[in-house]
């Protein structure tokens, strides 16, 4: 056996003995029946709500239970019931639906080639929408690429998002970013990075600055359970713990990282929320498809952060109902009917039924709302394409490619821009 260094190998053939390596199990692959037996659930209303002033370590149980408010009968129960008025719930439903309708339309449009790439948040709408609604407008958000609901709640016109997807003349990113890599300084939403997890410790640094300046604003960041494997997760947890930064760190456990099951990110042996207590900070595991639970947990964590109780790590247990992206085909690695069997249901459907059970909503109003939102999306799209698409229509000036590398363009980039323009002129 080549390359062996420290002492002779135990056997000439390293594979002579059967491997003892533990390989995390993936519950179901294509052709197998979906199996969610691994999920540790708590009944709605059953998990206590500690005072927001409670020391982090006294809240440890929150990191292993599952905070839920909506029960099987779609009633809101238990200590975490946020008691939002019906109108606020209707707004939440509207935001989630708009996110979904928008996602759905963009997904279909991508196939037409007018945009190069898209990523949906189907099934995870409550994570972004309920949280954004529970936060203050001045709180700074550091999202991943699957938090479009934040933009919807904070009111960024769909037109602007669409123009980014199209990299057209109204693209907020000036043509530099892949679709969905939005940013919005005025709306206090940070630029999305293609490099997973980097935003997590940046959010902690932002929160440290907020504390240094004695300001009330907190920072909130999201990443997927797969991304929690990156070093950035550790740095975020550590700095948040050491400096008690006013930040909420969210692990969106949608069970999958492209083709890789969450057990490969460490979810097989322990919850992701449990990493919080490991650092002496609060960790909460919440039903990510329960709008009310997510809202309540966010309020709890935000109040702790704002009152100097330090950071909270929230694990949102949810499911990536759609493909990872338009470049992905989940049929290759998981059962087709997985999502239908997902024990925590669908966030939109659950909030809808809750509102109906309150007598504040109906199938008719729902259908009407869907129709209205679809019309709105269609209308926005019509306008967006007038500003150009990847394939035709007006285009941004390619010279923009040389701007914003630095605040002022240095000589070598000016030379390169001139060379580029000369080349275009020749054509």
């Amino acid at each position, binding site marked *: *056996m080549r390359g062996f260094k420290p002492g002779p190998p135990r056997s000439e053939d390293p594979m002579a003995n059967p491997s003892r390596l533990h390989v995390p199990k993936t519950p179901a692959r294509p052709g197998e029946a979906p199996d969610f037996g691994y999920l540790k659930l708590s009944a709605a209303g059953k998990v206590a709500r500690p005072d927001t002033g409670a020391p982090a370590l006294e809240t440890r149980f929150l990191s292993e239970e599952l905070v839920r408010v909506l029960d099987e009968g779609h009633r809101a129960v238990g200590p975490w019931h946020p008691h939002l008025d019906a109108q606020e719930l209707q707004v939440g439903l509207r935001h989630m639906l708009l996110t979904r309708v928008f996602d759905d339309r963009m997904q279909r449009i991508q196939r037409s080639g007018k945009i190069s790439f898209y990523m949906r948040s189907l099934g995870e709408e409550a994570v972004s929408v309920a949280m954004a609604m529970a936060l203050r407008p001045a709180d700074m958000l550091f999202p991943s690429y699957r938090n479009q609901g934040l933009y919807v709640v904070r009111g960024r016109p769909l037109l602007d998002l669409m123009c980014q997807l199209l990299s057209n003349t109204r693209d907020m990113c000036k043509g530099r970013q892949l679709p969905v890599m939005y940013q919005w300084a005025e709306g206090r939403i940070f630029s999305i990075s293609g*490099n997973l997890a980097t935003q997590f410790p940046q959010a902690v640094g932002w929160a440290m600055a907020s504390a240094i300046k004695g300001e009330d604003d907190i920072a909130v960041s999201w990443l997927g359970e797969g991304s929690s494997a990156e070093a950035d997760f550790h740095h975020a947890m550590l700095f948040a713990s050491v400096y008690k930064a006013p930040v909420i760190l969210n692990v969106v456990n949608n069970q999958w990282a492209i083709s890789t099951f969450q057990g490969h990110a*460490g979810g097989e042996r322990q919850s992701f929320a449990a990493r919080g207590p490991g650092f002496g900070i609060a960790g909460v595991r919440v039903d990510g498809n329960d709008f009310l639970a997510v809202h309540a947990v966010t309020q709890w964590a935000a109040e702790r952060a704002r009152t100097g109780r330090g950071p909270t790590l929230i694990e949102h247990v949810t499911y990536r109902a759609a493909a990872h992206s338009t470049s992905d085909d989940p049929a290759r690695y998981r059962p087709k009917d997985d999502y239908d069997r997902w024990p925590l249901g669908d966030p939109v459907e659950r909030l809808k039924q809750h509102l109906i059970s309150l007598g504040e909503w109906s199938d008719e109003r729902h259908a009407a709302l869907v129709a209205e939102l679809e019309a709105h999306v269609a209308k926005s799209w019509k306008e967006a394409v007038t500003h150009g698409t990847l394939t035709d229509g007006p285009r941004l000036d390619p010279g923009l490619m040389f701007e914003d590398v630095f605040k002022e363009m240095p000589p070598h980039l000016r030379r390169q821009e001139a060379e580029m323009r000369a080349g275009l002129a020749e054509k």
Partner: protein
Amino acid sequence: MAQMNMINALNSAMDIMLGRDPSVVVLGEDVGYFGGVFRCTEGLQRKYGSHRVLDTPIAEGGILAAAIGMSVNGLRPVAEIQFADYIYPAYDQIVSELARIRYRSAGEFSTPVTVRTPCGGGIRGGQTHSQSPEALFAHVAGLKVVMPSNPYDAKGLLIAAIEDDDPVIYFEPKRIYNGPFDGDPHKPAVPWSTHPKGEVPDGHYTVPIGQCEIVRAGSDLTIVTYGTMVHVSEAAARGLGLDAEIIDVRTMVPLDTDTICESVARTGRCVIVHEATRFAGFGAELSATVQEQCFWNLRAPILRVAGWDTPYPHAFEWEYFPGQARVASALKAVMEAA
């Protein structure tokens, strides 16, 4: 012999090495059950088991550290970094550890790890799916760095890398996974089956690390290039009707300066072409070396054609990519120079 694209060729190399050498293991994000986002490891886990073809957490630094530890324990890990743009979290383990363990331990320990990673643009990947960071590794003493430009070299170089007792950073120009690309995105895609280098032996063979290849002999000037740009450069020279000698570097470290300088000494003219950003890119080393060794033979300044010194912009892919027109104008300039 079989027709293979680069993906088939890479897959075949790993398949053969997993079969021949029980110490070879493959690890990376989505490489196991799924077979990799570019399908390069397709079928390998089914064939060799989940203990030799491992799906890993999304932690490039952890993947490299684990691969180093495995290699110290007698295995030959082949680690995949899903995109070269995502290799930076592993940079410390590569630069401070992988590259130096043999040296600092006076040869008592060595780390025969191969790091495979897709690089380069032209696929609408935007700034984080298009980078060519080879210079950031070529500067680090202790790493071998290679980049093939065709299926035949891809398989032979990968087998050589896995068998090499030194660490090898193996860059795969993803734009030419499925076929050669001459820089014109509007032409219909050409499959490797139309290219002689798409003919690949089924069995074991190696392409030696440390040797350039003269892919076209010529006398007008020397084009030194690698990866996707080999094909763009060929097309550009053809377009100008130049009798260019085209050298595919293939291995950045250790660099085959003899082949390159012997050629430039003959032709007296040299253009260097790569996709990576120009400033302090690998082309600078090629230019400096050729200048030092061929100064008295040079009849024109050595020119570099490279990516602009900006991140790779999504919407301006074809204004950014150093295509035929840019290569051609450098070729003209070098030929016209008195």
